[in-house]
């Protein structure tokens, strides 16, 4: 679109990572802005039908974390061999959702980001009902093949959903 950017019309199928047989059709429009690459692409989408209800699993996870005596701390999820302990699985799913937001905010037509690993995660105590996690993640960018450390602060509540309140790209040697 002259003077505006490139618009893509997509028809895609969403697949539940926890249940490969559960799929839902989706259409979307993505607009990459010309010029200023610091603006996230504009996305509009519609989903055919409904997404699965996850209230039970959400509440189990929420109660478990709320009842921990000490704030949760973990690192290297998955580990070098690809293993994730069952207790850490929801922490990982949360990171995948939150990193989706970070990836969206930083994507251009020449990038392809994936969440490579959670390097470190630390629960932050809160006075309200929300759970807060401070993540240090590694993003893999396919075109440059770089591994980019990224810090993100994630808020979650079963009824209020996921929110990334803060995120920042880290210098490569932040890990050393």
């Amino acid at each position, binding site marked *: 679109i002259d003077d505006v950017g490139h618009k893509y019309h997509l028809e895609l199928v969403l697949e539940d*990572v926890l249940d490969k047989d559960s799929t839902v059709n989706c259409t979307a429009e993505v607009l990459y802005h010309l010029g200023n690459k610091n603006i996230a692409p504009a996305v509009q989408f519609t989903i055919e039908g409904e997404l699965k209800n996850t209230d039970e699993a959400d509440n189990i996870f929420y109660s478990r974390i709320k009842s921990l005596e000490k704030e949760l701390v973990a690192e290297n999820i998955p*580990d070098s*061999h*690809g293993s994730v302990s069952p207790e850490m699985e929801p922490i990982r799913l949360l990171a995948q959702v939150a990193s989706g937001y970070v990836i969206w905010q930083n994507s251009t037509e020449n990038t392809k980001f994936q969440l*490579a690993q959670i390097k470190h995660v630390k629960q932050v105590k809160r006075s309200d009902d929300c759970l807060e996690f401070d993540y240090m993640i590694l993003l893999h960018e*396919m075109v*440059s*093949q770089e591994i980019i450390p990224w810090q993100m602060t994630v808020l979650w509540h079963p009824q209020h959903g996921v929110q990334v309140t803060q995120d920042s790209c880290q210098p490569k040697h932040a890990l050393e």
Partner: protein
Amino acid sequence: ILISDLQKAIENQTGLRSYRNRRSLSGYNYEVYHSLEEIQGWMHHLNKTHSDLVHMFSVGKSYEGRPLFVLKLGKRSRPYKKAVWIDCGIHAREWIGPAFCQWFVKEALQTYQTDPAMRKMLTQLYFYIMPVFNVDGYHFSWTNDRFWRKTRSKNTRLRCHGVDANRNWKVKWCDEGASFHPCDDTYCGPFPESEPEVKAVAHFLRKHRKQIKAYLSFHAYAQMLLYPYSYKYATIPNFSCVESAAYNAVNALQSAYGIRYRYGPASSTLYVSSGSSMDWAYKNGIPYAFAFELRDTGHFGFLLPETLIKPTCTETMLAVKNITLHLLKKCH
């Protein structure tokens, strides 16, 4: 009598079958990732126990002085046989690559007697298998940085180490899709074949260029089967042969577990890159040059769980056997 064959029951329980058969491979676990030392030990073991089909040799030394081992697989049936070259682990963090190379060798040795296709392959061809190309990088990914990609050569000026071993070959070197900056993960190096690993393998492939009819390089991740060119958008001369080989291979792969691979020229299927081993092999006269990007498509990425080693390797075997048998049917 509660147990009819006690001997059998005990053997089944403790895997005693392994030392009844001196030539057994069953002591080694092919469904876990192995360190460089373990892989080298495994190669030495096979060299000793399967000397009729396996010959281990070195093509040179890595930057840090490690030997670059290759296994030559095949029956010494006739004086001159064509060959297939397979390498894994050009990029250190792509652990499923070396896992597949080991799996391939295991399958070859275990099914040579019972599978007519495998027997045909090993009788009519030699296979040169390099389970770990980038030995220094692979070792580093085990001890220091799981996401290391490049070699471990020291840069004279900057603090950054390593060269992308798949950007260091002498074919349109350091053009698009490679970086001149030593700190980047696609750094092409100070000059082509600057990396001793690349130089050693290039030397071997050049020496055997008349014998080698297929070059297969294993990477991760993306689930793709790629052929030249990577450095430009153009069609190779023997496109119809290569494309049909790729099409059949991808279908064979899918028949195992339904996993879909995309296939096509690397430049349009994945991205443009220059100085790759696949393009170099093709330019050097090897008619079938392929690069596999194995599982998955990003959910686990480089950290593919060990539980997925077996399905990944099983389906990939079908593709490799398919390409090999296609090669024997003469469409070059």
